[in-house]
């Protein structure tokens, strides 16, 4: 097999001069799949940006070492221009990658850039390959998360590059979207296309990877061959799990903890809701009740109505009909009462901030700062005068949890709180939830994360096209695991 990529990086980093990648070397031959795994913030994405020449050519960063990508050095500006023809890169967040109004336009844009003639039949065929033929002219805003991700793939590989790089290809996807993307990567692998996958959910790729690289704190910890991975599978998965990499199926606890109270904190009865701009009901006769200290977890497909339910319970939208009772409040509305009753934490933490320093954010909440100690988050004391937007994504997310806690509500609702978090950070969040509910507070979570469901749920619900049904935690886990049981 011909060598496609040969990487020897001594140091690489951004404009501040601090190296974020150190001593990384690997090679990839044609038709091979390299899996790069490591915890959040370990430098996986930076490594991709380094080997494609983005760090040096677009971000004013530096790379010390050599990179040979099919005979070119992407670090040199004149050769960087050749990279797009050889490599297709699918970034983590489709919202930060898609620029055109429809899938047809998006795929055409790549071809136009690279000097190919735009032939509609060819574009439709590439959309057909990712199952988007029928949505070729639909506005991109109306595509699901899985569809957007598949569109990113189509737009990145329409010109048939020799190497395709996927950065966290399944982040933020529901199990169905997840399954579609993993199946597609496997299909590309069978077609003999060279692939690099960067993931912390390693378990879906370990069986098909030719090489596995483990990276922590920017260092290459291990670089393993397929034979080694298969012969030391158990040992390897255990070691990776210790590093925060998701490598094994979750195991259900035999019995959940006894609930601290029999008093109902949240009661939703026959709740119906439709948006004013639509005639179709998004929530159809939803019933839900949670006791004090309970953790309810709602699972379901993207667009099934989970987020809408959280927002209606939060009082953001008025129900079309039905009853919502939070503590002593009936059909809550905005205002003083609601502020102490419910707090909704959106998936994007930036939405929640209103002040220009962390200290002011915390001081503006209902409860006094002195009521809390920040032992679990010592970094907070070091960034009190910083703008919340200068924190890392993980820190911003954590700050949003702290704000929720300081509002001292009866119930906190989280929308996909662990999206993009590795196992280590997920465990920290689980500890947060357990601590919060130990004081008789209630938590309601909408998620696709089977590990979170397994770790915290005392009640589980499946939302299917606006209809909510209560199930056992085991049933909910199977519901999420079945589509990805590849």
């Amino acid at each position: 097999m011909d060598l496609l990529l040969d990487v020897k990086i001594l140091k690489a980093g951004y404009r501040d001069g601090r190296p974020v990648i150190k001593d990384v070397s690997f090679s990839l031959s044609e038709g091979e799949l390299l899996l790069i795994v490591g915890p959040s913030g370990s430098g996986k994405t930076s490594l991709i940006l380094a080997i494609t020449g983005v760090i040096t050519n677009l971000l004013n960063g530096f790379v010390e070492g050599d990179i040979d990508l099919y005979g070119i050095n992407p670090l040199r500006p004149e050769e960087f221009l050749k990279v797009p023809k050889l490599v297709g890169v699918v970034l983590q967040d489709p919202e930060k990658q898609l620029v055109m109004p429809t899938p047809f336009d998006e795929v055409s844009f790549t071809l136009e850039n690279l000097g190919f003639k735009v032939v509609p039949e060819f574009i439709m065929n590439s959309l057909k390959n990712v199952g988007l033929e029928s949505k070729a002219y639909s506005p991109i805003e109306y595509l699901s998360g899985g569809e957007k991700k598949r569109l990113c793939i189509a737009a990145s590989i329409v010109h048939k590059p020799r190497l395709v790089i996927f950065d966290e290809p399944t982040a933020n996807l529901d199990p169905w979207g997840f399954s579609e993307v993993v199946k597609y990567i496997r299909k590309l692998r069978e077609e003999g296309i060279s692939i690099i996958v960067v993931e912390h959910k390693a378990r879906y790729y370990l069986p098909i990877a030719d090489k596995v690289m483990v990276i922590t704190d920017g260092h290459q910890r291990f670089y393993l061959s397929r034979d080694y991975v298969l012969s030391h599978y158990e040992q390897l998965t255990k070691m990776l799990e210790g590093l925060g990499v998701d490598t094994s199926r979750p195991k259900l606890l035999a019995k959940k903890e006894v609930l601290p109270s029999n008093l109902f904190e949240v009661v939703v009865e026959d709740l119906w809701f439709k948006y004013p701009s639509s005639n179709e009901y998004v929530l159809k006769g939803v019933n839900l009740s949670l006791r004090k200290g309970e953790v309810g977890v709602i699972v379901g497909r993207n667009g099934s109505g989970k987020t809408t339910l959280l927002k209606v319970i939060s009082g953001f939208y008025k129900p079309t009909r039905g009853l919502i009772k939070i503590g002593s409040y009936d059909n809550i509305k905005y205002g003083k009462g609601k502020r102490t009753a419910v707090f909704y934490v959106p998936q994007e933490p930036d939405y929640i901030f209103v002040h220009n320093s962390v200290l002011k954010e915390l001081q503006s909440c209902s409860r006094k700062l002195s009521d809390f100690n920040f032992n679990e988050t010592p970094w907070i004391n070091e960034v009190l005068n910083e703008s919340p937007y200068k924190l890392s994504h993980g820190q911003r997310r954590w700050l949003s949890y702290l704000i929720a806690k300081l509002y001292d509500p009866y119930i906190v609702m989280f929308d996909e709180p662990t999206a993009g978090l590795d196992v280590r950070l997920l465990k920290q969040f689980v500890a947060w939830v357990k601590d919060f509910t130990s004081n008789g507070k209630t938590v309601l979570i909408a998620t696709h994360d089977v590990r979170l469901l397994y770790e915290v749920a005392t009640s589980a619900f499946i939302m299917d096209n606006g209809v909510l049904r209560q199930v056992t935690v085991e049933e909910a886990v199977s519901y999420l695991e079945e589509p990805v049981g590849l």
Partner: protein
Amino acid sequence: MIVVKPLTLFIYGLVITVLAFIARSTQQLLILSLVNAPVGILLGFRRLRVLIILFLLGLVGLFINALVFANNGAPVLDLQVITVRDGALISFLNVTLRLLTILGAALIFITQSNVRDFIKSLEEELGLPKDVAYTLAVGLRMLSILERDAKEIQLVRVERGYRKYPLTPSGVSSFLRPLLSLGLERAVWIGIATELRGFALRSLERKGFRVGVSDVLIYSLLIIQCSTLFMFH
């Protein structure tokens, strides 16, 4: 169905904006805003409500500005703390009509243009550099994402006990800060993604400027509006 080329709409929007700045009298501005604002707001109300809301929020600042810098002439209203004079009202009205005209033309352009066709026509027909054309096109694409962000921020503001629509300068700043932060992060990644899809290699062949019947209608409407500047001079 009438199909107008994105380039025609772009030129229309650009010329109307220039006219709005050149026009000095209230009559001239009234005619321009009456032609453009209702059409634009009607077309953009569902998709781009956020722009209309931001415009309405801006009116508060506009009125304060008029009170500070143009409050002269005959007294119109005595509010105890301040007397509002006709100079302030006339300048407030003129600037409002000017902005309404620009808003209307912008909404007509945004709602009736396809981003990819727009970039292509700017490059192929007008010969504009690809970076300028692309920046304009991505800006348009981002409007719908910006609107979604703005709605989410409004909800969470209310939850935290703040006004849904900020009225004070610090309120506006707290509203815009997350919008800008998210926008900046997106802009960086979109730039990287676009370069990795070969944008630097993009080079479209220059084609001539061709005009259809619907384009002629739009240009005629534009000429009529230009003539109002002379009629009410």
